[in-house]
């Protein structure tokens, strides 16, 4: 990777990209493939999945059998470096002590950010999802439509590699033929659920996931991705050939050393580097965007985390993609005479309307799964899911919008707790452990949250991080739309567990108790919403700040709604689209 040290920094760059995750990776890719000189600033350390991923380690190879700890909350082998619910030296605060008003903020500090360990579920927003206000009068319409984004969904799916199928369901878009990779077969338990919930009209269909079920079409995709750009085609064709197909054996949350799934570090950054147009500076924590006398951004001030010293770099444009919360923080900390309330914040909306996904879960044991004949059920996450199926019932539900359901079955790598629940000891005990292993199911609902006035972040007036930079303070409140939705999820899960003859653990009828704490689903978006009116939004439809057009917000911060569909595919599609527009504007001399 083009990892540079400070002494190799150029005097100026065309574009400075802050952050190297989904948004930053896509931005750098699109820019460099088009010949634009880019500096990427990344707060975390350099990270190389090819050499660092613990592909085949058993949990017995990890301390404490890979137990979840404060330092490694998703277990020892999880591909999160220097991150988690807390990052040492980088606090954030809560405005309220009420647990229901908490926002938990997951961060990772490494090259590639959260894309190294994300779940890789890659669902397109549908046409309704971009016009929610028009449908039910709540929240905001996007200043763009599904048709504007669709070509970029196509491109991102081809570039990163997404498996799935086209089912022709309402607001659950199909992809053009030949874009998706084939969906893997459903697991035994997944098929069992499908059969037994059909009577409720609940569809169980292949999920879309950023995993190479087969190798990418390196012959045809490059020209579809980069028409009239032979250099880019050549580079991406080669990069595609360097990725292997999934071998159905391991846990993608550890990352993938054979590059079979999408991580920015294996998919976006290598070809971007191969163009020769990308410099990456790690351990560089951006503090603020600097502004010239013309009112335009002209660079970034960052902390060199190795020396603790403050540095400045220059660029003609700046793309922030530090994760939506951190992007809002950088804007709020970029105060100047011209922008006393922070950059691009004339509307006062920076930090406002932050959103997560509505989450609730229910598990149970399923006698039918006991003693299932042994076969491999590992690899590439869950293979199916349940898209929202009650669009026609919207007026009867008592809450707006909807949710999709993810569920896990099967014999996965044993961890802490395997066998722990059976009684007795000796041969009969072991027999029961075998019988019960893999005979469980876990349902998770993932639903749409409507942006509200009570969920926002701002700079904490007193608390600073270890470099003296003011930190974020979070305000959070679910509305009844979300809590009622969570209650509906629980009732649906209980109904489905019952339908498969299982025993649910303890369904929670009270939605305000069933709903996960804000932030816990880690689908953090919003905080600098886009819109058609500069007074009521922070960016236009091209993630471009109204007040400072050479600053783009290419992570989820410009989202003005958060559909039930997991956000990352949309982050990448919008980043690509916004970056294309930026290149165009720079070429025209408009910036």
């Amino acid at each position, binding site marked *: 990777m083009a990892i540079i040290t400070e002494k190799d920094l150029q005097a100026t760059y065309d574009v400075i990209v802050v952050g190297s995750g989904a948004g930053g990776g896509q931005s750098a890719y699109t820019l460099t493939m088009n010949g634009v000189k880019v500096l990427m600033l990344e707060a975390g350390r350099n990270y190389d999945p090819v050499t660092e991923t613990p592909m085949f380690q058993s*949990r017995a190879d990890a301390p404490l059998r890979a137990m*979840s700890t404060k330092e490694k909350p998703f277990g020892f082998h999880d591909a999160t470096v220097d991150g988690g619910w807390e990052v040492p030296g980088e606090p954030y605060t809560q405005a309220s002590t009420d647990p229901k008003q908490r926002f938990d903020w997951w961060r990772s500090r490494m090259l590639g950010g959260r894309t190294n360990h994300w779940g890789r579920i890659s669902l397109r927003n549908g046409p309704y999802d971009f016009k929610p206000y028009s449908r039910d009068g709540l929240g905001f319409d996007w200043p763009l439509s599904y048709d504007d984004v669709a070509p970029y969904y196509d491109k991102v799916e081809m570039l990163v590699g997404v498996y799935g199928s086209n089912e022709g369901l309402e607001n659950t878009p199909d992809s053009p033929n030949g874009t998706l990779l084939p969906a893997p077969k459903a697991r035994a338990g997944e098929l069992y659920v499908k*059969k037994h919930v059909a009577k409720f009209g609940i569809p169980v269909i292949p999920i879309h996931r950023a995993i190479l079920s087969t190798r990418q079409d390196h012959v045809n995709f490059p020209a579809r991705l980069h028409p009239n750009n032979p250099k880019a085609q050549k580079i991406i064709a080669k990069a595609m050939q360097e990725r292997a197909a999934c071998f159905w054996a391991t846990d993608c949350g550890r990352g993938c050393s054979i590059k079979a799934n999408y991580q920015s570090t294996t998919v976006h950054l290598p070809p971007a580097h191969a163009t020769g147009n990308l410099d990456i500076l790690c351990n560089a924590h951006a503090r603020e965007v600097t502004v010239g006398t013309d009112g335009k951004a002209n660079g970034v001030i960052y902390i060199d985390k190795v020396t603790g010293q403050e540095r400045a770099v220059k660029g003609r444009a700046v793309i922030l993609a530090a994760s939506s919360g951190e992007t809002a923080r950088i804007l709020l900390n970029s105060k100047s005479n011209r922008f006393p309330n922070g950059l691009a914040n004339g509307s006062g909306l920076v930090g406002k309307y932050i959103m997560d996904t509505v989450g609730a879960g229910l598990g149970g044991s399923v006698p039918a799964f006991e003693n299932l004949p042994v076969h491999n059920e590992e690899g590439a996450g869950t293979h199916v899911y349940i898209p929202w199926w009650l669009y026609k019932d919207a007026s009867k539900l008592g809450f707006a919008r909807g949710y999709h359901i993810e569920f896990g079955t099967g014999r996965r790598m*044993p961890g802490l707790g395997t066998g722990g629940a059976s009684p007795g000891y000796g041969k009969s005990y072991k027999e029961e452990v*075998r019988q019960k292993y893999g005979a469980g199911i876990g349902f998770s609902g993932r639903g749409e949250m409507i942006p509200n006035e009570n969920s926002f972040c701002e700079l904490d007036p007193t608390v600073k991080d270890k470099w003296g930079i003011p930190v974020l303070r979070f305000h959070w409140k679910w509305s009844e739309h979300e809590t009622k939705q969570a209650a509906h999820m629980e009732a649906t899960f209980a109904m489905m567990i019952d339908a498969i003859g299982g025993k649910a653990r303890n369904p929670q009828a009270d939605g305000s108790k069933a709903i996960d704490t804000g932030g816990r689903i880690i689908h953090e978006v919003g905080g600098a919403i886009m819109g058609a009116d500069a007074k009521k939004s922070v960016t236009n439809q091209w993630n471009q700040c109204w007040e400072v057009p050479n600053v783009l917000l290419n992570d989820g911060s410009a989202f003005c709604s958060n559909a039930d569909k997991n956000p990352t595919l949309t982050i990448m599609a919008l980043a690509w689209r916004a970056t294309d527009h930026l290149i165009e504007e720079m070429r025209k001399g408009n910036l």
Partner: protein
Amino acid sequence: MENIPADNSGQIDRRMALKWIGAAAAAAAVFPHASAQDKLPRPAATPTGQRIGTDPVLNKNYVPGDLWPLTLTPKQRKAAASLTDLIMPPDNPGDKLPSQLGVQEFIDEWISSPYDETSKDRPVITEGLDWLDAEAQRRFQKDFADLAEAQKCAIADDICGKTPVKKEFKSAQNFFGRFRYLAASGYYTTPQGWKDVGYVGNVPTVNFDGPTPEALKHLGLA
């Protein structure tokens, strides 16, 4: 107790953890004759040592003792090994005993570690192991590890919870349940434990074949 959802098996179940906090508090107060019988030095009260940290080397194989010192006494470790083997005797020819796979060392690593979640188990396990030897001495004048199989079972049957447990064995029952949780976690996470329980992943294959015809038949899907 509860099943851990398939996608969540690496994480400690919160409710389970809370339950055991209660158990630990209870155990610290009972086991009256343990310290009188066991003259060996007791392990340090608060384990100290290196934590895992936020950026450990991930693709390296660790063994108990790599990050913090183990603290069971030799006598406790012997009892732990013996009880582990009693709980999970090998079923297949050629299989190793759990103690030969180092399961008791994992339990030692667990109770010696500097984490709140694990150190809660420390009094439960150490005092329980001491109790086990004391009880073996009381009944059979030998340490637990030196008992004949039937003698070990006589004690285990009283505390394993399969049949109603007498009042005086309640804290021993707590110990046994927690010990079994750890021993099983230690064993089933090893490659031999995988085979034993019916996990055949972690081996690369070209295609994902999906369920076998037998599996589909089992579920009435064929």
